[in-house]
């Protein structure tokens, strides 16, 4: 069980180090066991250095950088232990266009292994969907599904 965690941890760590560089276009990041001797109890620390910047506490990162780092870590866990589907509710809210585009590319890379359900207000994210559902309230307080016409996306 100790070994099982160690193996999974190292695998996620491996994925995270390259996923971060992919999403940030460089830089470096790591996950570290706070207490390597107490592997079954140890907390996990995140270290991140965006390209061109110095290594600092992650709290100093910007809103968008934090979102992107969290996405990198989540996708690394997902890569390590795939699930049939993933649901993401407005995870792109803090991303600018360039970072939203990088996030989109990563999602598209994963579509062979899983289905993605993405809730978003971002037209950039909408553009990479294979189908789009609109949810509106035509009658006050009552949700309905409607079809959406948008650029390249298929509609449903």
């Amino acid at each position, binding site marked *: 069980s100790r070994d099982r965690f160690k193996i999974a941890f190292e695998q996620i760590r491996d994925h995270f180090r390259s996923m971060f560089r992919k999403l940030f276009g460089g830089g470096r990041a790591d996950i570290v066991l706070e207490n390597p001797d107490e592997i079954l109890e140890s907390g996990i620390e995140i270290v991140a250095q965006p390209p061109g910047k110095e290594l600092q506490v992650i709290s100093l990162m910007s809103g968008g950088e934090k979102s992107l780092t969290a996405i990198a870590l989540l996708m690394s866990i997902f890569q390590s232990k795939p699930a049939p589907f993933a649901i993401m509710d407005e*995870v792109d809210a803090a991303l600018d266009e360039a970072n939203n585009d990088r996030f989109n590319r990563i999602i598209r890379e994963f579509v062979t292994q899983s289905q993605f359900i993405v809730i978003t207000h971002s037209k950039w994210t909408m553009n990479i969907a294979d189908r789009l559902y609109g949810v509106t309230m035509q009658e006050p*307080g009552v*949700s309905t599904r409607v079809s959406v016409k948008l650029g390249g996306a298929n509609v449903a």
Partner: protein
Amino acid sequence: MFLKRITIAGFKSFCDRVDFEFGPGVTGIVGPNGCGKSNVVDAFKWVLGEQSARSLRGRQMIDMIFNGSSSRRASSIAQVDIVFDNQDRSLPTDFEEVTVSRKLYRSGESEYLLNQQAARLKDIRELFMDTGVGVDSYSVIEQGRVDGLLQSNPVERRIIFDEAA
């Protein structure tokens, strides 16, 4: 296995029954503020066994039942059904299609169904064990929670890793 469809009826703002069909790849859900998009996420969590009303933004589980609007009366029952394709038998059952349902009555009575048969949450959890599908999964990221992984303390963060391990 893969996800085929979710059907939401009487749950939160979905007074009328609404289906969402899912295919391969990316399904986007869009629409104005307050119209029900995140309620779809809550429906997923709820039907898969979420026990905490707070985690569904409510105060008590009865908050999950459509409680009326200026144009409709409150519903007496909330129901969500989720359907999976199981042709690859990744779920340990002989059914080619697996449907999980959850109902909640205003009286407080609630039930789970597995392919229309009464089931215990325990059975449903066992069925989905090790598939990555479930309530605590790292595969559901709620609105405003994406930074959570960074903000949580190292020990809280550990919980997500334990599930992935």
